[in-house]
């Protein structure tokens, strides 16, 4: 059965359109207004067992011993909840990020920064009953964006998450607190509402909590939809 219809996106807490300083947006975002459509069963259902299609692996990118990736060891606790704050269990979560020098393992990355043979910067995980995934990795570096006259991306981790229904898909980026580049980033600052921006920045947990060797960051991902656990009658 379909879920309840979803509330419309709030343009102040979501970014869209052509963004100053991010040239590709003017080639790619539609010029015509987006069409408002009714929400039917087709949009209010979604794959419930995506992990059977997309294999998951443990969220350990940092490696161990001689195979440890270079950089500051971090432990990211990311929780997926719906708009009621109900944890979304069994949700597939994909993460990817660059190495401590700002280099991605990707053929399209032309940044002249060294690769780290011990860092494979991508993982796919499944949330548990509390909606939580835990990622052990190293803190990614900042890097310059080519042909932009000085735009540097602040350190960030990409997230791709599935809520319970087709319309609840969420792809976003997690930022780190206290990074001076956060203030100038064309992507983070395209979100107009300052509180919505602040929610995109992870919280550093007290260093007395969690594994003593890693800095712990906590992050909450809110997917669209309400009462994630039960299907609506």
């Amino acid at each position, binding site marked *: 059965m379909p879920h309840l219809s979803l509330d*419309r*996106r709030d343009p102040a*807490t*979501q*970014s*869209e*359109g052509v*963004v100053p300083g*991010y*040239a590709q*947006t*003017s*080639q790619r*975002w*539609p*010029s*015509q207004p*987006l*069409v*408002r*459509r*009714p*929400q*039917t069963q*087709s*949009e209010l*259902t*979604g*794959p419930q*067992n995506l992990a*059977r*299609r*997309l294999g998951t692996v443990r969220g350990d990118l940092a490696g161990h011993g001689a195979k440890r990736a270079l950089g500051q060891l971090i432990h990211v606790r990311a929780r997926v909840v719906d*708009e*009621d*704050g109900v944890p979304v269990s069994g949700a597939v979560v*994909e993460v990817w990020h660059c190495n401590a020098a700002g280099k*991605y393992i*990707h053929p*399209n*990355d032309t940044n002249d920064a060294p690769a780290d043979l011990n860092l494979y*910067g*991508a993982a*796919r995980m499944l949330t548990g009953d509390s909606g939580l995934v835990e990622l052990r990795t190293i803190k990614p570096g900042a890097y310059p964006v080519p042909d932009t006259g000085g735009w540097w991306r602040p350190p960030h981790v*990409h997230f*791709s998450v599935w809520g319970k229904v*087709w319309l609840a*898909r*969420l*792809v*976003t980026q997690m930022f780190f607190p206290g990074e001076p580049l956060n203030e100038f980033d064309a*992507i983070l600052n*395209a979100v107009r509402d300052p509180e*919505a921006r602040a929610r*995109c920045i992870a919280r550093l947990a007290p260093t007395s909590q969690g594994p003593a060797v890693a800095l712990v960051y906590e992050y*909450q*991902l*809110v*997917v*669209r939809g309400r009462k994630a656990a039960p299907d609506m009658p």
Partner: protein
Amino acid sequence: MKRLIPTAEMTIGPFFPPEFTQGTNDLTVFDGRKAAGEVIEIIGRVTQLDGKALDNVVVEIWQADSKGRHDNAEFQGWGRAATDADGVYRFRTVKPGAHDGRAPHINFLLLYSGLMRQLQTVMFFSPAADPVLDAVPVSVRPRLIAKREGTVYRFDIRLRGDGETPFFDD
């Protein structure tokens, strides 16, 4: 209970791991089971304002099975592809059935560098009465109808500019 505001979506960027889009564009086999229904291919090219074909666009689809049911044991109905260097994506699937007042259709979601958030559109198989197709201005409705070439349905997507594909806000 205090309502939480959905997290701001952000661009997928240019570095989505290539292996995340491999082996996920054939919907006709799921968990070792073959889907019932008419097997079809969907092929399309994604272009931007200046007409350039776009490489590594992530395209995800969601559809009903041949009888119009969602997410059953034989057919999950979800798939993902990435465009190649010629801007072309491909899916192999079964033709969805009509259901709940909807004409047969496939939901599309696009993620790409330069798109601040996901773009949603819908592919139809023929002009038909459908509440989502009817929401689109009449003059551009034909852009949502795939062109049939044998067992291949061609569905090109223009993000912006001449022949721009209609996209939806939800």
